């Protein structure tokens, strides 16, 4: 191990003292970005956005050209229509891909560091526990948004540039849709990411985290299904977190057609509270675990 006398020069630059979570975030994103499994899962996740992209192109060209050979077909098939509901369905149908990708990137986010005893090194550096946790959570959320909100933006942009009368002013028309897509993506991605991070902070390995998270989701939805069957009340389905998320998506996109519940007397506030409280519980678990590790 050859070492020379003048190896260790003092740093004359400026230390980055703020937004340390950005380093954790970047490290996390770079780490899984290199993984072939991640690349494969991501490719699978963008199949739907690609299909939707062609749908947007086809719909706009057919709608703007009455002589287009596809025009009669597109006018009659309602689900080919490019409107707010399409974005709702797009994000909703991304849910399985989001769950799988988030499980891949998030399951090992904390437990792998614990397994590799990396906390000792990380927390011996000038970094706070909350920088660490924020970085991890944001990285996992970013993966989720990369399959929901970001493709929505691209689809909206594709829609915008293929419109005949598009101008810089018509961009403003997309703002509500951007906001709705962001909200629904967040309602889907954030609880999922927090749940997986909480699992990762509790369970010892990635595999156990994945199995546990899937089991909890299945158990939660099964319980909701059983209750609604036995008690003959479809509204009990709101106990299922995925159904609650879908329901919130409907509300965000003002889809009046009830897809999940028997009646309209379901309280949106209750369901939103349920999602928020679940997310806070997940966050609280992660905070406790990381604080515990940081305290030693």
């Amino acid at each position, binding site marked *: *191990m*050859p*070492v*020379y*006398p003048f*190896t*260790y*020069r*003092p*740093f004359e*630059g400026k*230390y*980055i*003292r703020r937004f*340390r979570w950005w*380093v*954790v975030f*970047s*490290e996390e994103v*770079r*780490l899984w970005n290199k993984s072939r499994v991640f690349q494969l899962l991501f490719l699978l996740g963008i199949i739907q956005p690609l299909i939707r992209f062609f749908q947007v192109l086809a719909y706009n060209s057919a709608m703007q050209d009455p002589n287009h050979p596809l025009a009669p077909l597109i006018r009659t098939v309602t689900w080919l229509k490019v409107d707010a509901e399409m974005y709702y369905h797009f994000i909703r149908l991304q849910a399985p891909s989001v769950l799988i990708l988030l499980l891949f990137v998030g399951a090992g986010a904390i437990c*792998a560091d614990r397994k*590799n*005893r*990396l906390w*000792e*090194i*990380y*927390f*011996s*550096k*000038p*970094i*706070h*526990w909350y920088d660490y946790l924020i970085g991890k959570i944001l990285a996992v959320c970013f993966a989720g948004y990369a399959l929901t909100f970001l493709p929505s933006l691209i689809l909206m942009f594709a829609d915008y540039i293929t419109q005949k009368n598009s101008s810089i002013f018509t961009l403003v028309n997309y703002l509500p849709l951007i906001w709705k897509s962001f909200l629904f993506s967040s309602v889907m991605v954030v609880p999922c990411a927090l749940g997986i991070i909480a699992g990762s902070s509790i369970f010892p390995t990635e595999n156990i985290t994945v199995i546990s998270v899937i089991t909890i989701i299945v158990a939660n939805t099964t319980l909701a299904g059983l209750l609604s069957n036995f008690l003959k009340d479809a509204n009990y389905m709101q106990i299922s977190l995925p159904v609650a998320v879908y329901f919130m998506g409907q509300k965000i996109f003002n889809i009046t057609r009830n897809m999940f519940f028997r009646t309209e007397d379901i309280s949106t506030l209750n369901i939103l509270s349920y999602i928020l409280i679940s997310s806070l519980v997940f966050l609280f678990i992660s905070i406790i675990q990381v604080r515990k590790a*940081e*305290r*030693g």
Partner: protein
Amino acid sequence: MEYQIEAVELSKWFGEVVALNNVSIQIPSGVIGLLGPNGAGKSTFIKLALGLYKPSKGKILILGEKPRNNPRILSQLGYCPEMDHFVEEISGYEFLYWLARYSGFDAKEAKKRVLSILERFKMTNKMYDPIATYSKGMRQRIKLAQAIMHDPTVIFLDEPMNGLDPSAREELIYLINTLSSQGKTILFSSHVLHEVERVTDTVILIYNGRILAFGKVREIRDLIQNHPRKIVIRTFEPKKVYAQLSIDPNITSVSFDTDEITIHTVDPGITFKLLNDLIVEDKISVLSYRCADEDLQSVFQYLVSTHIPKGL
């Protein structure tokens, strides 16, 4: 600042296990050896100093401030842990790069520092290989590199010699001396005493979570007032030598070998003087003599034996 590390009634317990018990110590700059057997509390002390553990009682100050959640102090500390702490699937370069970023460097500076340190540690040709493929020695180098690449003021090396081959040990000793000459404070823990002795003559002896002694090896030796010390005399006439030395009341026991006599004395000064006088007066013929327990190992054993309750 006079003291780099200062502990005041510092205690740490894990459940019912007391890892560190009411330790008060003031450590100045320089290279300090932290000696103690496994489980003595060395790593606990280091982790408290790094702010990785919260003290159960008392306090610890590094460079005059509490280290815990204190980025200003933490950026001046370097830590080489005892165990391996790696992301196995990434390369050594990448691992060091991210840790440099954690230390607060921007991407450009982090890259520059990592390349420089990897070159200095002769790791350039393997820097893009996954850490999982590294040998024990290479892993140790990576751990050391991350501990010093940000130019810390105080460096904690927890059993850094573990797994190093003899030449790497020599290089590490050279590294510690180099860092010391640059004014760094180095707290170097080990349970292999001769390793520490080669790096520094200032040691802290720790056992069962308590500081047994702190100071120069010779000063620590002076603490051992009543323990007999061992002198080995090489001679062809051991019985004659013993007969002459027996007038010294400080000698507590004697053992013979074919050409050697080993004596235990409570006052080696008087015994050595008597021995010299006998040789000068040609009353005995001696090939050589030496104090057999001058090294740290025996100092440590003596101190530990006086602190371990009988029957344990």
